[in-house]
């Protein structure tokens, strides 16, 4: 019998999140004797490269595809082609739209991830939350779905009306000083933070799309000596991010589990190739929730969290 071959298609392979996802998949594939080929877009949002990757996998005779889609709706047709060709398609990290376009989904609930840090932030400020000055450091002007879900989740958790939940930037709450985009890296995080500080130097709460942009925002605050007056919250739970929580750079972060997503995905493809079994979703949800945990050393009443020691034992990169 031929070795089972599988494909992993991520949004990019420059984001440590996907790098770790790939490492998890490779480790599991080696363990199960599956041949894994991985593909990635050039930048977040690079949809055509993902389409080409799916076509390549079909041409290559793969048994299944694991995909973190850049455009969750647009990819559906290509996914359908793959499924028609007999491949098992599993969405990782980002559910497709509609979610049942994939055979299964192993993902973090990104809205929930945002909501957790939002609740924590509100709890941390206490009564002062009513006068908070919030900077929102988002990903990109194209507003990919993770970007919107985490941002709107945070605001919801904080107790701010989000307006249209499908986009950020249409809120009217005066506590929001502004939104700026970071490209998800340190450089962008610093510049966005500086821009918002120039607008209002008294910002005291900073939401960031991910931990690299949080680190950049911190540098901007540090350069004007306000790093101790401002709380930064973020999402991801990578090891440098958790270390930053421990060092007080980030107040709290929502941790997700990409290695687990990947490992589960590879197992599912192996099972499908061996006996045609499809994985089942989590009870009561339409996807398999790989879970999200809030990591902080300053727990807040009413919000479940783990400390950085535990966060470090679970972190991914």
């Amino acid at each position: 019998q031929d070795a089972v071959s599988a494909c992993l298609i991520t949004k990019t392979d420059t984001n440590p999140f996907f790098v770790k996802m790939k490492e998890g998949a490779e480790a599991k594939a080696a363990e199960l004797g599956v041949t894994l080929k991985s593909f990635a877009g050039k930048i977040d949002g690079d949809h055509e490269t993902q389409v080409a990757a799916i076509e390549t996998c079909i041409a290559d005779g793969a048994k299944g595809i694991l995909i973190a889609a850049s455009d969750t709706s647009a990819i559906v047709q290509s996914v359908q082609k793959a499924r028609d060709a007999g491949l098992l398609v599993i969405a990782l990290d980002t559910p497709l739209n509609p979610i049942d376009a994939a055979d299964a989904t192993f993902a973090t609930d990104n809205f929930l991830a945002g909501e957790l840090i939002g609740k924590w932030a509100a709890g941390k400020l206490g009564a002062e939350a009513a006068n908070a000055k919030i900077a929102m450091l988002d990903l990109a002007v194209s507003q990919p779905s993770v970007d919107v879900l985490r941002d709107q989740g945070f605001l919801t958790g904080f107790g701010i009306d989000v307006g249209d939940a499908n986009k950020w930037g249409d809120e009217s709450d005066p506590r929001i000083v502004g939104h700026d985009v970071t490209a998800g890296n340190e450089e962008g995080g610093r510049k966005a933070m500086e821009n918002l500080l120039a607008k209002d130097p008294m910002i005291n709460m900073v939401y960031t799309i991910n931990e690299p942009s949080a680190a950049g925002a911190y540098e901007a605050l540090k350069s004007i000596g306000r790093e101790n007056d401002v709380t930064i919250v973020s999402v991801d739970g990578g090891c440098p991010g958790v270390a930053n929580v421990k060092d007080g750079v980030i107040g709290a972060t929502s941790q997700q589990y990409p290695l687990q997503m990947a490992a589960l995905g590879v197992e599912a493809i192996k099972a499908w190739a061996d006996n045609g079994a499809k994985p089942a979703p989590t009870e009561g949800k339409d996807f398999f929730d790989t879970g999200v945990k809030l990591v902080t050393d300053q727990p807040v009443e009413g919000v479940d969290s783990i400390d950085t020691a535990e966060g470090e034992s679970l972190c991914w990169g």
Partner: protein
Amino acid sequence: MTNQTEADRGLLGQSEAVASFEHENTLLSRVQHALHSNPALVPLIVLVASVLVFGVLLGGKFFSSFALTLILQQVAIVGIVGTAQSLVILTAGIDLSVGAIMVLSSVIMGQFTFKLGLPPAVAIACGLVVGTFIGFINGWLIARIKLPPFIVTLGMWQIALATNFLYSGNETIRAQEIEVNAPLLQFFGQSFSVGGAVFTYGVIFFIGIVLILAYVLRHTAWGRHVYAVGDDPDAAALSGVNTKRILISVYALSGLICAFAGWVLIGRIGSVSPTSGQSANIESITAVVIGGISLFGGRGSILGMFFGALIVGVFSLGLRLLGADAQWTYLLIGALIIAAVAVDQWIRKVSA
């Protein structure tokens, strides 16, 4: 009679024969001549060589009609945009806004159909008009206000892309919906097969536009003027070319072609997605340059760009099938782009 004519008296009885030298007519010299008169031959040779190399490495997996026609499908969009880019680069310009025009046009086609409820044909026409109009603005700023093409199209890129995001609300229109309500939008995604080889209408459009533009550039006055403007704009203007009109028409046509690419894009990805096409500018320029068109204008052929786009397509698919992971693929494609052009240069040199 002046003394000048003293010298001129020597002219009486001069020979009226045209200069002629013996020409060796060897195979080599004929090959050399062919390479000189058809600049697109060199990228074609590089293309064939790379197909052969990957064929040997990958065997039937690569040499299947499925894989080979897949390459055509995968390069069709960049290739169509590349024809627009070629026109612009032949005038010594550059168009960074091609990808943004493409995606904005496709979003307009989709949103006008689904949000405004226009008949798909009308919505498509609107998309084409908008694309042409943006191109026209580019051309007008470049030709009339004499702004550098790089800056104008850089600015337009940002403007069109932001407009696209703002207008679409970052929403994708799903393939299923389009299929049911406005299949015309997916027209270029339809395909037919000839003995296992699958051709989409998008691919046919790509090949068609390459052939049409190759004809127009070579065999019409407009085409010669495009070359003249790129070659030396002052000389072109002095020798009677309406350089402004040519520039404006080139950019407007580029916009129109990009709008068509937007329509083809809907066919390829099924849906209307505002995040597509972000790297179309750099990829189309790459195809143009690998195809041997000079970035300084006036030299090269659109057929060369066609082969250039295919070379990149062959490398990408071949490397992916070989199982190189994404970063290694980028690294190798980087090296191969340089190598392809080096081979091109070398062939030209030995054949000079």
